[in-house]
C-alpha cells in the first residue's frame, strides 16, 4: 500500500463507468455517492418530478449536506437524468468542483479514442483538486490494483452463485459498498472471503447451511442496501446473480486491452466490459434482451426480477423486448418499478411472494 493512502482526499462518483483507477492514480480515494435514505423530497425544486428517483436521491443528499468533504465529484454522461444531475448539483452546491465526463454509448475504436481523450482531460484536474499530477507509471499501478479488486469481487460472486458465500448476497453487497465508499485503500482486505460472516440470525450454528430459496436473477438500476437482498430472501427468493449498477457492475473486470497507452487501455477496458442499459450495440438492436436471458440462464435462475427505477428511459424502453425474450425462453419475469428505496421495495412484498409461489408451483 502506498504510504499516506489513508489520508487521501475523497472524490465522489455515481456511475460504475467512472475511471476509478484514474482517481486512484491521482492520489484520491473514490467515494461512491449511494442513493440511500428516503424518497427524494428536496430535489423536485430543481429537477422535474418525472425524473429518475436515483438521480434525485443523490441530489437530495447534496442538498441535505449528507456527504463527507469531497475534493471533487466526477459524473459520467450516461443518460438524460445523469446529465441533469451535475447541472442541478452546481446550483445546489456552487462551491463543489463538479465534472461531467462523456461516456460513449458503444465501444467502437473511435469511441475508445474519444473516451481516452476525455480521460486525459480529466487527468488535468487533480492538481487543482489537491491531488497529484498523474504519471503513466502511477496509472499502471492503479490499473493493477483495480484488476486485483475486480478479480476478488468476481471470486465472491462465483461463490454466491454456488450458494456458498457466508451471509449471501446481503453480505457481498455490504462489502462492495464498503470498498466503494472510501474503503478503496484496503479494498483487498475488505473483499477477502474469509472476512465474510453469516448474518446474526444464522450465526448460531447453521452458518454452513447452503442458502435456500428459489434462485432468481435480478437486473436493473440500483439496489444498494444489503437489507434489500435480505428482503428477497425473506420472501423465498435467493438472488444468485445480478446485473445492477450497485451490484455486479461495481468492480467489474475491465475488458482486456493491449494498448500501450494506459489511458487508451483504461478507455477500452471500461467501454468494452459488460454493457449496461445505456450501452448500445448498433450491430444488435435490442441486444439487452438477449443479455438478460443469457445471464439468467448462466446463473441457473428460475425466474428474473427487473428492479427498475421509475422514469428510467433506458430500461423502460427495453422492458417490452426483454419481456418478450424471457417469455420465449420460458423464464418468468417480475417487474418491480419504484423509487428504489427500501420502502418502495417493501411495498412490493406481495408481488415478490406471489412470484415465488408461482415459480415453486412450476
Amino acid at each position, binding site marked *: 500500500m502506498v504510504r499516506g493512502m489513508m489520508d487521501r482526499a475523497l472524490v465522489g462518483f455515481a456511475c460504475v463507468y467512472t475511471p476509478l483507477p484514474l482517481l486512484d492514480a491521482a492520489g484520491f480515494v473514490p467515494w461512491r455517492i449511494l442513493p440511500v435514505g428516503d424518497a427524494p423530497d428536496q430535489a423536485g425544486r430543481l*429537477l422535474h418530478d418525472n425524473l429518475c428517483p436515483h438521480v434525485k436521491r443523490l441530489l437530495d443528499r447534496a442538498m441535505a449536506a449528507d456527504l463527507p468533504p469531497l475534493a471533487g465529484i466526477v459524473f459520467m454522461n450516461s443518460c438524460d437524468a445523469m446529465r441533469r444531475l451535475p447541472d*442541478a448539483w452546481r446550483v445546489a452546491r456552487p462551491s463543489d468542483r463538479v465534472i461531467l465526463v462523456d461516456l460513449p*454509448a458503444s465501444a467502437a475504436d473511435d469511441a475508445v479514442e474519444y473516451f481516452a481523450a476525455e480521460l486525459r482531460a480529466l487527468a488535468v484536474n487533480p492538481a487543482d483538486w489537491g491531488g497529484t499530477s498523474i504519471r503513466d507509471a502511477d496509472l499502471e499501478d492503479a490499473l493493477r490494483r483495480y484488476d486485483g479488486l475486480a478479480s476478488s469481487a468476481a471470486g465472491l460472486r462465483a461463490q454466491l452463485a454456488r450458494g456458498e458465500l457466508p451471509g449471501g448476497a446481503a453480505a457481498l453487497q455490504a462489502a462492495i459498498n464498503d470498498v466503494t465508499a472510501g474503503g478503496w485503500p484496503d479494498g483487498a482486505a475488505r473483499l477477502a472471503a474469509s472476512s465474510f460472516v453469516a448474518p446474526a440470525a444464522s450465526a448460531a450454528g447453521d452458518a454452513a447451511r447452503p442458502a435456500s430459496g428459489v434462485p432468481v436473477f435480478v437486473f436493473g438500476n440500483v439496489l444498494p442496501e444489503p437489507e434489500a437482498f435480505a428482503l428477497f430472501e425473506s420472501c423465498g427468493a435467493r438472488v444468485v446473480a445480478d446485473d445492477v449498477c450497485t451490484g455486479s457492475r461495481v468492480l467489474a473486470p475491465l475488458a482486456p486491452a493491449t494498448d500501450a497507452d494506459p489511458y487508451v487501455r483504461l478507455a477500452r477496458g471500461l467501454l468494452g466490459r459488460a454493457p449496461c442499459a445505456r450501452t448500445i450495440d448498433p450491430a444488435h438492436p435490442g441486444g439487452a434482451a438477449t443479455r438478460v436471458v443469457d445471464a439468467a440462464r448462466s446463473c441457473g435462475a428460475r425466474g428474473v426480477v427487473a428492479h427498475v427505477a421509475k422514469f428510467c428511459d433506458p430500461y423502460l424502453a427495453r422492458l417490452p423486448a426483454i419481456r418478450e425474450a424471457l417469455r420465449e425462453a420460458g423464464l418468468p419475469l417480475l417487474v418491480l418499478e419504484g423509487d428504489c428505496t427500501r420502502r418502495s421495495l417493501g411495498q412490493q412484498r406481495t408481488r415478490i411472494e406471489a412470484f415465488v409461489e408461482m415459480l415453486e408451483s412450476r
Partner: protein
Amino acid sequence: MIGEYFAGLARDIEAKLAAEPAASSARKVFALEVARLGVRLYSPGRPVAWCGVLAPFDLLNGVGVTSCFAEFVGAMLAGMGAATPPLEGAEQAGYAADTCAYHRAVVGAAMQGMMPVPDFLVATTTPCTGGLAAIENLARLFRRELLVLQIPRAETEAGVRFLAGQLERLARFAAGRAGTALDAERVAAAVELSNLTRGLMVEIYDLARKVPSPVGNRDLANFGIVVPLLMGTQAGVDVARATRDELAARVGDGKSGVAGERFRLLWVQNRIQFPNPLLKLLEDEYRAVIVVDELNDVTWEPIDPADPYPGMARRAIGLPLNGPAERRVARLRQLATEYRVDGVIHPCHWGCRQGTGIRGLVQRGFRETGIPVLNLEVDCIDARSFSEGQLRTRLEAFLELIAGRPRASA
C-alpha cells in the same frame, strides 16, 4: 393511412394553389413541402432513413436518402387527432405510460404497421436517451441496420473530430444505400442550399424580433424543428424564402401578426401538437403572441461546403439542447431579451427527461431576470390527459399577472 393522408394533403394544397395563386401563403408552401416529404417517406422504392433529432438531414438529402426524425410521426398523428390508437398499442405492449409520448406513438405506429419500413436507421445520443432507445426499438422491430451518432457533450477538438468522423462514415454508408459512391460535389451542393436556408432563417428570426412582431401564433409553429428536414434541398430554400418574404412584407405594410399585439411570449421547446384552443385563447382574449419558440433559433455557423463534416459536428454539439443546462438557460435568457418578451411558457411535456428535466433550473434562471415563467404540466402528444379547464385557468392567471407588470417592449 399516414401515407394517404400526406398524398391527399399535397393534392389539396396543390389544387388550391393552382386555382387561386393569390391565396398562396408561406405556411401553405411549408405545409406542401412537408406533405411532399411525407409522400416520399411513405413511397416504396426509395432509400428512407428514420433518424434521431440531431441527424444531419442536409447531408442525407445530399446523398439521396429521404430521412426524418421519428418524433415527427408522433407529432403528425397528434395533429391528425389519431395518436390514441398507437399510444394504446404501445402501452399494451408494455411501453410505460411514463415515457415520452412522441416515442410511444411512433413505436406503436410501427407495431401497428403505420410506418414505412426504412432502409436503415440513424440514432443520435442526444438530445435524449428516450429518443435513442426509440430508434433502437424501431431498428429491432423493422430488423434494419442501425447507425448510432454519438454526439459529444462539448465542442472540444477531440469531440468535433469524433463526430465529424462518424458523419463522414454515415455519408459513405447512406450514399451506398442510395446506390452511389459518396460524391463530394453533391454533398457540397447540398451544403450550399443548407447554408442558404440557414441565412434565410436568420433573416426570418430577425424579422420576428420586431415590435410589434410580424409573426402570428401559428406562423412559425414547429418551423425550426421541421425545416431542417428540408435542408440541403431547393424546397428548404423555397419554404424559408416564402416565409421571409411574407414576414418582410408584413413589416413593410406595418402589420403585426396578432392585431393589437399586447404581450410577447417565449415558448420553450415543443408546441402542443394536437388541436387545442390555447393559441386562440392567447390571441383572441389577450392579444398575446408567441414571438419566439426556443427551437426557432440558429445556433450554428455556415458550413464549409469543401469540408462539411467538422461544421456539421459543431452544429450538432452546439445545439443548446445538448450540453449543460447552464448553456441552454443562458440561451433562453438571451432569446427572451432579444425578443423583448413579457413572459415565458414552458410546456413540461410529460415523459421528457431531456427538456422538462430542467424545469426548476429554467425557472431559477429567469427569476434573476424578473421575467415570469409559466410551467404547463402537459403532454404535447397524448390528448387523453389534456385538461383544458386546468390549463386555461393557469394560462389566464399567468396573463393577468403579466398584465399587471410593465411591458418589456415598451
